[in-house]
């Protein structure tokens, strides 16, 4: 008996990647349903009013990586997306000074020269090296990673492209590239700079979201992962989505719905249904069943495969590989409603860098020790914080004169060690409070009167992130960004083309190449592969094709 499917494709999860996949497929003329467990959409790209009058981007909080090809293909500005760049940043020190990062080249030079005239000059060499790596990697973001074990023409073609690009670098640059990809951010910075504070300021991007320390090989790549985005062509620039990160999801959803897509919220996928080794649809938690020959899962691969697919329909070694996929929570977050702008005594009045990202770590060893704490199941005694007050730029985030502060915290473990056990269950109210206290102490280095301004504070450990958004262990990238889980190894070797051994099931979230961040690339790439493999139409239209 053949049942006429309700939809051509069902996307499980309305995160930004799921919505991206859905929007591309709807534009290609397919009937697409997006199902979402929460009552709201956006996954980890959300704007939520958790304190009346204040909007929190309570998961992801800044924007740069979102590929401009996708923004253009899906016409996101038409659906309300506005991305506003922010100015620079700063690292504050316990002795009342700061290092400011300015986007103005000459101002940055002078600022660096305050600490080290040589570092001020060396910055050019550093930024040249980083920019070259960005230029090298960017073309790969919207392409498929080839399977080196495969002789399929597509894989050979992608492999040839990789070899051509690598060859085009020339011997010297290829060597530098190999080094860069395998280095620790600490070693890389030590090769360029002498000043501790400057190094600490630049190192942060190498550890955000990862279960690695600044001295772990591979963290230079993680830094790149945060630098390879752009705003209006300014590579490495970061900005705010006006209205919070949810504005990105809202624009994607609007683009999707305008092209005939349907979003069903409030009930997550209970099971991905199969018949004869092929996907037939999904059963939702609320009992509804929708049929479709293709399901694209925006959930991370562990959640998708281990929780929602019958193990019997999958090869054992695939399930084992998924089980071993490393997806560790390492970050926490504080979202704070402030009654007014707090004082930063070290900063001059109206300092532009207060509108940027602010930190309080002073040296590489301090950052590495923060990682050591995490390894044994504790949050860092002196965490790295990435703190911004977007309401200074975006008037929609808080009532006039009041402010919203977002504080990203590295490191906080998912499996908190309490009394000899390590588990996500250990995150109770008391633990969250204790961690928040640690973080607020850290904020006080920059902003001693912060406590007097707090109206409301949301404390999110990796456990909350898992519970609410669904990210396994609260890993913000849906899987560690280590060599063994990148490019053709992501998410599982042999399945870097967004497929799974189960026919009709695709992975479209950040677990897939090229990984996490509000980038949209996995979603766009997955859509391209679904169209190519599952439809007669075959080809995706647009720049991301």
């Amino acid at each position, binding site marked *: 008996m053949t049942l006429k499917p309700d939809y051509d494709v069902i996307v499980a999860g309305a995160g930004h990647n799921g919505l991206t996949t859905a929007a591309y497929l709807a534009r290609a003329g397919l009937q697409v349903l997006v199902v979402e467990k929460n009552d709201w959409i956006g996954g980890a790209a959300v704007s939520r009013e958790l304190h009346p009058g204040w909007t929190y981007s309570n998961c992801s909080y800044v924007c740069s990586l979102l590929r401009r090809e996708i923004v253009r293909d899906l016409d996101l500005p038409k659906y309300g997306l506005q991305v506003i760049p922010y100015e620079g940043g700063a690292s504050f020190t316990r002795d009342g000074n700061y290092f400011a990062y300015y986007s103005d080249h*000459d*101002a940055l030079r*002078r*600022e660096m020269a*305050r600490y080290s005239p040589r570092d001020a000059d060396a910055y*050019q060499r550093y930024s*040249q090296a980083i920019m070259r790596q960005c230029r090298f990697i960017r073309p790969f973001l919207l392409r498929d990673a080839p399977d080196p074990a495969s002789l399929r023409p597509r894989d050979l073609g992608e492999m040839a492209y990789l070899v051509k690009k690598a060859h085009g670098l020339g011997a010297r640059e290829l060597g530098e590239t190999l080094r860069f990809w395998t280095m620790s951010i600490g070693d890389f910075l030590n090769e360029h700079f002498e000043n501790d504070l400057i190094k600490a300021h630049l190192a942060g991007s190498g550890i955000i979201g990862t279960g690695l320390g600044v001295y772990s090989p591979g963290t230079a790549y993680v830094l790149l992962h945060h630098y390879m985005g752009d705003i209006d062509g300014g590579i490495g620039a970061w900005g705010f989505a006006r209205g919070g990160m949810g504005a990105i999801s809202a624009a994607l959803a609007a683009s999707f719905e305008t092209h005939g897509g349907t979003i069903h919220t409030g009930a997550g996928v209970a099971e991905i249904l199969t018949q004869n080794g092929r996907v037939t649809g999904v059963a939702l938690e609320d009992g509804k069943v929708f049929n479709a020959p293709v399901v694209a899962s925006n959930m991370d691969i562990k959640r998708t495969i281990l929780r929602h697919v019958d193990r019997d329909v999958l090869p054992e070694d695939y399930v084992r590989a998924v089980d071993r996929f490393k997806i560790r929570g390492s970050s926490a977050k504080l979202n704070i409603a402030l009654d007014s702008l707090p004082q930063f005594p070290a900063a*001059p009045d109206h*300092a532009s860098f207060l509108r940027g990202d602010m930190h309080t770590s002073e040296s590489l060893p301090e950052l590495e020790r923060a990682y050591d704490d995490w390894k044994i199941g504790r949050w860092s005694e002196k965490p790295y914080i990435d703190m911004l007050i977007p309401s200074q730029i975006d008037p929609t985030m808080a009532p006039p004169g009041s402010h919203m502060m977002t504080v990203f915290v590295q490191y906080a473990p998912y499996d908190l060690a309490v009394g000899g056990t390590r588990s996500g269950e250990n995150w109770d109210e008391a633990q969250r409070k204790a961690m928040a206290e640690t973080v607020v102490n850290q904020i006080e280095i920059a902003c001693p009167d912060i406590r007097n301004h707090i109206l409301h504070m949301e404390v999110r450990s990796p456990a909350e992130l898992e519970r609410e958004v669904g990210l396994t262990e609260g890993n913000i990238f849906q899987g560690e960004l280590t060599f063994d889980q990148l490019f053709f190894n992501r998410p599982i070797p042999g399945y870097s083309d967004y497929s799974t051994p189960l026919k009709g099931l695709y992975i479209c979230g950040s677990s897939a190449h090229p990984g996490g961040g509000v980038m949209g690339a996995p979603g766009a790439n997955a859509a391209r592969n679904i169209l190519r493999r599952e439809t007669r139409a075959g080809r995706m239209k647009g720049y991301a094709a």
Partner: protein
Amino acid sequence: MTISPDLTLGLVLGPVHDRLEALSRTRNWYGWAGYAAPASVESVEFEYFALRNQASLFDISPMHKYRLRGRQAEAVLNRLVTRDASKLRPGRVGYAVWCDEEGMVIDDGTLFRLADDDWRLCCQEPMLDWLAEAAWGFDVEIADESYSLAGLALQGPTSFAILDAAGLDVAHLKSFDHAAAEPDLMISRTGFTGDLGYELWMPWDDATAVWDRIWTAGAHLGLRAIGYEAVNIARIEAGFLTAGVDFQPVQATERLNRGLTPFELGLGHMVDFSKGHFNGRRALLSAREAPRSLLMRVDVEGFKPAQGALVYHRKRREVGHITSGIWSPTAKRNIALAHVATPYATRSPTQLWAEVYTQEEGRWEARMARLTPVEGAFFAPPRARATPPARR
């Protein structure tokens, strides 16, 4: 080092900004290494003619200046630059270029030998990191004088007379000589204009006083304050290169393969293979025979400056571009510097054309203008080198 807050954002003011501000009518400032520098002061045309006919004063303090002192300073500099620094005697200044390991030009500048073991390097690009790398393992001390040493360029036919009137005796200075005219005031017979001229070097805080002294002395000798646009015309006439315009300083480029060798820039005579190893020597030995392109001096047909134009061979094949192009008011020629790929630059240099776009009162036109190679500088007056120098 001491850490003092420096909160200045945007352009900062140079050592003689007060004087320039008072004179500026065009209020046309541009950023030069972070300083507010005048693109013009009153009118580019009259500033240029002051430079070629009387005298001009231009603040060159934003240049980067480095001091190298010590037993092995000469060894370090010889490791750095392509020419033989040991041949430069104390009291002399030398033009120099330096390359990366692949033989691509990092920057050019002037090298002052102050004493046997005491040197100064002046250049456009920040170079402290690179100098420190070059000096690692050598007995030499490097000081960044960029923010402590000011420079004023006094250029033009009456420049000698002005210095004389200011009580500064430089009659004995030959081209590329330098001497301490007074304590804390060094004068070199150098410049970026190809004309008779001097550069005055003094402590940052003395600059205004020196400016005033020269200004007063120049009152009856036609002295004018000028901006970069006038200097730029003069330097193209002299055939001098500007970093970032006529070549890309290789350490400041993000894209690969943008570097050029001294041979490709027409600076082959600056490379001395016989002096022992220097940076890029091994690469340059093989690059010497096979330049990928040449920077040519050309006369452009017609009267429209060809700045930015693409260069074609036989009007068809794209083979290069114009890096700097102006109408030369002194040579009365339409002159330009052009990067042209080999073999077109050498094999058939008379078959090169520039595609010049012109916009006149709202109408755009494209025109092919024939290029004629020119040997040597477009303008090189004998007064530039005569010693003792002429007074007007």
